[in-house]
């Protein structure tokens, strides 16, 4: 079986004057369809860097990246945009909703760039919002929602185009424990339905529920295995 995500010896190096910062320092990682992977590590260890490369938002300095068997490190801007649109759904810590668009319009955005018709967009967006339980807030603007609700909108947005991979960079970072729980349960539900989930988190109790945990330190993978042994080691 080919992995859905296949990172081969990935480097991301930032040059700060004399110093170089190796945000990814020879990372190789395979993730298969249907996995639920939690990436953990200290602040500055290179988790987001890895996630951005996985999400085609950033390009590695060196190394190869195969997504669904296709080498994406060679693709140009617009081809990467196409892949983000079709294959990837992002959930960010800061929600990243567009303030002047209402909830429905925000969720429709990726469908808009996919070139779907107005009716189709509305239908899919409404369905996604229904799944996250926000059917009654379609016309609200982001600043009229609570943090948890905004995060649910961004989840709906990530879902709307039915991507095979959901990437979440500290999705619960700004939420209280109860709302974090809801978000996590939702991600688990999506995973049960067959989506591949990659989640960055600082929260041990959340990472503990993932099927697989990858720990990063100084741009290197120092642990890759099941959740149970990930935390007893510490």
């Amino acid at each position, binding site marked *: 079986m080919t992995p859905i995500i296949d990172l081969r010896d990935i480097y991301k190096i930032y040059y700060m004057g004399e110093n170089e910062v190796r945000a990814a320092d020879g990372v190789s990682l395979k993730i298969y369809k249907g996995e639920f992977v939690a990436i953990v590590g200290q602040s500055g260890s290179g988790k987001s860097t890895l996630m*951005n490369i996985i*999400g085609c*938002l*950033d390009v590695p300095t060196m190394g190869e990246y195969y997504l669904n068997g296709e080498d994406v490190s060679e693709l140009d*801007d*617009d081809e990467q*945009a*196409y892949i*983000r*649109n*079709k294959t990837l759904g*992002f959930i*960010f810590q800061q929600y*990243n*909703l*567009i303030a*002047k668009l209402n909830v429905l319009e925000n969720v429709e*955005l*990726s469908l*808009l*760039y*996919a070139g779907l018709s107005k009716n189709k967009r509305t239908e899919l967006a409404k369905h996604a919002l229904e799944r996250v339980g926000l059917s009654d807030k379609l016309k609200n603007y982001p600043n009229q929602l609570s943090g948890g609700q905004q995060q649910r909108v961004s989840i709906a*947005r990530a879902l709307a*185009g039915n991507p095979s991979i959901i990437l979440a960079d500290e999705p619960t970072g700004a939420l209280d424990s109860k709302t974090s729980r809801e978000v996590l349960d939702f991600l688990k539900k999506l995973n049960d339905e067959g989506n591949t989930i990659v989640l960055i988190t600082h929260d041990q109790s959340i990472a503990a529920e993932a099927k697989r945990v990858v720990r990063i330190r100084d741009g290197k993978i120092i642990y890759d295995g099941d959740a149970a042994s990930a935390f007893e080691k510490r």
Partner: protein
Amino acid sequence: MGFYQAFKLALKSLAGNKMRAFLTMLGIIIGVAAVIILVSLMQGLTGEVTSIFSDLGTEVLTVTVQSRGATRTVDDKDLYELYEANGEIFSAFSPNVTVSGTVKYANTEYSSTVKGVSEEYMEIEDYELESGRFISYADIEYYQKVCVVGSYLNKEVYNGSAIGKYIKVGGNKLTIVGVLKETDDSSEKSGDDLILLPYSTACKVGKTQISSYSFFVRDTKKITYAEDVIGDYLYGIFKSDDYYMIINMQSLIDQMDEMMNTMTMVLVGIAGISLLVGGIGIMNIMLVSVTERTREIGIRKSLGARRRDIMRQFVIEAGTTSAVGGIIGILLGAAVSILLGNLIGIDATPTLLAVALSAGVSIFIGVLFGYLPASKAAKLNPIDALRYE
């Protein structure tokens, strides 16, 4: 993303910040309005002056002779001879005398124009008679104290029955023998407020001399040839062209048209500079807008927006800004030029061409100056844009 979507988004973003949108558009509004006003007024003015000149007759060559200091001179008889010798070119001829004496009837003074002319003047000016007769050859030959009046005097002073009555010009009693049909609006100081008398009589009454001669040509196409014929004759007499002048209305009109056009171009060019400044204003605000919305651009890119999607959004936004500014400018410009036109008394309604041109130019400027900020936005790296604070 479709064009319509981008357009709607652009309008929304304009409406979201009305004050800034207005200030951004101000340059375009002023530029477009200035172009419309200038073009409309200049065209109105040109039209007005041309029509005044044309009324004076494009078939007429007016000759003035100033023989002081010359060894020889010409008089009305010489020019009559020239006229009769060239019957195939000219169809009418009249010496003109301007009389400045006071016009009086029953102790009331009038400001009517008084002119001494020949019996053929009617043809030159295309006058028609309302009643009575025109000045005759005999009137001129025998210095008859007769005159023909325009419809203003006939109506206002004589209640429509001027024939046989008299009018005093410079203290001389003249008998009215004819009344002209209305050519203008029969009001005071209009073309209908006029008294014509035999030019011979006019010289005596006005204690003056013939001021000019009018030659009426048969064919306007041959007017330059006719001008040459007269010029050759006069040059033959004076051996110099310092003592006479031949005025050809058509060439005057052509010259003036050309001058007005040049002037319009210069003025529009100056007004165009404000359009350029307006465009730079749009570019400036678009650059600010791109910076402000870096994060939004990052979000859109993370969701799959391609370069051209972002590009289109910003170019259309810039185009919409300047188009809306252009429309406001056109309305403002049209209103001001019609108002000013009415004030000066000319028809300064903006032409479709002026409107279409300035609308086109303003959209073009928006797109042109929106291009740079838009491509800056489109080229942003998604992760840098998303991280932007």
